[in-house]
């Protein structure tokens, strides 16, 4: 499973996903789990995406990470649909011989995913509903690479 991309509505088990990355002589596995942020009266979000392009763009990002660092595997799971505040929304895992590659690759995939993969969040709460605006800080993080 050099590259694994999943886009799904259902929840996921981070430990199970991590176990898929173990072995293959990997000395390091780094994982990231993102959660739906509450606060500001946000009770939940809905995640829209572009089926087909979403998977394609994440695979492109994963391939770029594999080529930039000596990664053994990259695995990405992103949820779509309605999600309450506090829910798991995204998971990224990388494996490598050494931790440096695994850390860098994981952060790169997450930064690129936030600025390139076609997902759009709409927040729901006491204010009604509103589309989330893209943040220049996310763009700046992605441009570091």
């Amino acid at each position, binding site marked *: 499973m050099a590259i694994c991309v999943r886009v799904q509505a259902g929840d996921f088990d981070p430990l199970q996903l991590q176990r898929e990355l173990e072995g293959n002589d990997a000395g390091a596995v780094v994982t990231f789990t993102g959660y739906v942020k509450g606060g500001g009266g946000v009770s939940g979000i809905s995640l829209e995406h572009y089926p087909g392009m979403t998977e394609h763009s994440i695979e492109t990002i994963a391939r770029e990470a594999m080529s930039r660092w000596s990664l053994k595997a990259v695995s990405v799971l992103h949820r779509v649909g309605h999600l309450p505040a506090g829910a798991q*929304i995204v998971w990224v895992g990388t494996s490598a011989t050494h931790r440096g590659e695994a850390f860098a690759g994981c952060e790169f995939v997450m930064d690129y995913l936030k*600025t390139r993969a*076609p*997902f759009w969040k709409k927040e729901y709460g006491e204010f009604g509903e509103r589309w989330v605006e893209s943040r220049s800080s996310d763009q700046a993080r992605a441009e570091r690479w």
Partner: protein
Amino acid sequence: MICVRFFARVREALDTEELALSEADVADLDALQDHLQQLGEPWRSVLAEPNLLRAVNHEVVHGNRALADGDEVAFYPPVTGG
């Protein structure tokens, strides 16, 4: 035919998920966008938003690009996943 799809805020503002155009009417991406903007409001202003993104066959396109029968074009706002 060329399939044109709209997502998120753009889809809502246009009240349209997708439509089909003849490749005879829209030789390239800029021509396709001009064609749609000539439908009047809200097309004219929604498709004039400066941060609008365009993709052809699931690849983001910066600048113009020729279109052919069977292509899928998408218009959407900046992404906010993760």
